[in-house]
């Protein structure tokens, strides 16, 4: 059969390509997908998007979003995260959230659980303002904070706050494949514990041992006392997720005990962008790095360093100088507004009216 099927597939493929080419001739200067996006934004060949179909409050400041991903979604491994682009007040913002759903759900949907951070633009939007039916942008799932195969004999999950989310993704998928699980979870108070009912149910049904720590009452977890909580912690394959302080302390403790290779961490807020006046400017395409003050336009900084910078009016009106800010912070010299970016945000800035507001990387 194969020798018959192959040429036929080829013929279909080339017919498809011809139709696509013809469609391009009709839709130029835009592409056919710009029209198809109006009808079917979640189709397989579209840029990956998703639609928020359900929103469930978890605690006072956390909610789970059930998302129907586009047909191009390639699935995920429990513990991985997905970058989500949402339009908040008209501006597209990208953030990463751990997937909390079971993999391969019959309805094909995925879920993330978001905790509103103080001043968090996106998290507050998603928890308090987002509406079902909203289209969002998605990346494919990624991350290596996952369970190995075969599963470890003994596991410890060490989490705090929204750090429970990737762990919940793992537990929902694999708790029955794990013989011996301890979850040590910290949250300010009992009612702040995300997935509290589900975790407590897993504990009462004997599938996990749950140690809840309510830090407003009990104080922060003291790693010196860890042995008193989980006696055999050095023998356990451990996944830790939570604030930087918790992860730094865990790194230290595991490394002091000589079992650093047993510890897997997920730093879900890894980038703290320090803003100030001026800073080190990297032009990553040319590999040039220079120090710039807070009042010199990045266009001038780049040109002085010999970087080929696109330019135009040099007064902020023509947008001829627009360049990608890969990471870091810049300040608009006209109104002092600071713009920050981390890789993948796709932020473009006008270099003729922007100065360094901390270390930054301009892709030129």
């Amino acid at each position, binding site marked *: 059969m194969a020798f018959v099927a192959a040429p036929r597939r080829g013929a279909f493929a080339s017919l498809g390509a011809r139709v696509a080419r013809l469609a391009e001739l*009709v839709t130029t200067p835009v592409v056919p997908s710009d029209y198809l996006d*109006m009808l079917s934004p979640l189709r397989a060949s579209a840029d990956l998007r998703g639609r928020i179909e359900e929103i469930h409050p978890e605690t006072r400041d956390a909610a789970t979003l059930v998302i129907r991903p586009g047909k191009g979604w390639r699935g995920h491994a429990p513990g991985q995260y997905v970058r989500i682009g949402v339009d908040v007040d*008209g501006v597209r913002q990208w953030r990463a959230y751990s997937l909390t759903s079971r993999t391969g759900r019959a309805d094909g949907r995925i879920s993330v659980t978001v905790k509103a951070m103080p001043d968090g633009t996106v998290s507050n939007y998603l928890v308090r303002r987002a509406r079902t039916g909203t289209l969002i942008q998605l990346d494919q799932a990624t991350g290596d904070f996952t369970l190995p195969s075969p599963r470890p004999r003994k596991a410890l999950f060490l989490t705090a706050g929204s750090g429970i989310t990737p762990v919940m993704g793992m537990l929902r998928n694999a708790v029955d494949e794990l013989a011996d699980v301890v979850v040590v979870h910290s949250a300010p108070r009992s009612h702040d514990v995300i997935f509290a009912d589900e975790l407590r149910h897993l504990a009462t049904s004997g599938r996990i041992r749950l140690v809840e720590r309510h830090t407003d009452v009990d104080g922060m977890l003291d790693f010196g006392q860890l042995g008193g909580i989980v006696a055999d912690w050095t023998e356990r394959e451990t996944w830790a997720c939570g604030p930087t302080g918790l992860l730094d302390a865990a790194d230290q403790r595991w490394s002091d005990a000589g079992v650093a290779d047993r510890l897997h961490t997920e730093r879900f807020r890894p980038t703290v962008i320090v803003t100030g006046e001026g800073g080190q400017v990297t032009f990553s395409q040319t590999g040039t790095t220079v120090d710039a003050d807070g009042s010199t336009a990045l266009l001038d900084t780049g040109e002085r360093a010999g970087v080929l910078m696109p330019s135009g009016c040099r007064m902020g*009106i*023509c947008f*001829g100088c627009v360049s990608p800010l890969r990471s870091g912070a810049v300040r608009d010299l006209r109104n002092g507004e600071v713009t920050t970016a981390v890789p993948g945000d796709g932020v473009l800035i006008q270099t003729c009216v922007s100065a360094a507001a901390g270390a930054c990387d301009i892709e030129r």
Partner: protein
Amino acid sequence: MTAVMSERPAARTVPVDDPTAHLTDADIENIAKELDALRERVIASRGARDAAYIRRVIDVQRKLELGSRGVLVFSLFPPAWLLGTLGLSAAKIVENMEIGHNVMHGQWDWMRDPKIHSTTWEWDNVSPSDQWKRTHNGMHHTYTNVIGEDGDLGYGLMRVSPDQPWSPFYLGQPLWNFVNACFFEFGIAAYDLELRDSLTDGRHKTPEFRERAQRVLRKIRQQVTKDYVVHPLLSGPSALHTLGANFVANLVRNLWTHSVIMCGHFPEGVDTFEKSSIEGETRGQWYLRQMLGSANISGSPLLHLMSGNLSHQIEHHLFPDLPSNRYGEIAPEVRDLFERYGLNYVTGPLPKQVASAWRKIFLLSLPNDAAERVDRVLKRFWPKWLRTA
């Protein structure tokens, strides 16, 4: 008619007919402060409402274009031809004006949507967007109405100020202007390519020019293939009618955009500036030049949409990168500023502004003394609504 602003604000020397003669340097700096503050207010309030606006315009435009092209498949039937041609003309106008022109200005860059961004947008026009952005955003908006710097002033074909020396070539400028209007997108492409200057000074032999020229040719080929080959062929028996419809739609778009753009800088009351006047120009003086060098068109919301809000040319020239839906909202404040500082806010209905611009083009095709005599005679015949101060 010509405002001269000296490079040293402390020693402003101005001719008697300078419309800014009554302004002190402090006034001009205060105008800048007020306008900067207005801009900041708009930027601080940009949000979901604005994003929804442009997405809706794009959505409606695409549906209108697709629908019209669909109707034109049956253009053998006169009602279908008429409806399809009207729709396609409107779709092309909206695409060029309210969407393309404004997106390429970076008015929507703040949304960080890569699909609606000045760096990625390509428009339904034979001039490639990056070449348009360089001459339009970079040259025209920076050097607005400065003779010799702003090529939009007559496109190098026309005399636009009585201060420019007259030559017999200008006798034909009403004709040049009409031909340019009919084939405006090609005129723009040649102009963005700096075709004439490049042919004169030998730049046309450089690899850089050839590369750019090739991209213009490729864009022309794509546009022509779409409008005059593929769409007619898809119309089967209606092929010739569809071809005609595309031609008419492009012509309507060209005439309309040319008229709107002429109304922006040509009507009576708009000033031009000498090159020497912008040396050492302050931000306030730049704002002032934009205020005096632009003219609005008054009319309905539909007119504002179809003109890409270039009917608010004054507001657009003050703030080329503010979202177009905001120009109408800030116009009363801008007009109030003009009045408080005793400046002439040039505006009028479309027919009046178009006639005013054409009148100027006719008169300037003649030597100054002849023009004055003709103008005196013609003034008696102007209908009342066409008479300007």
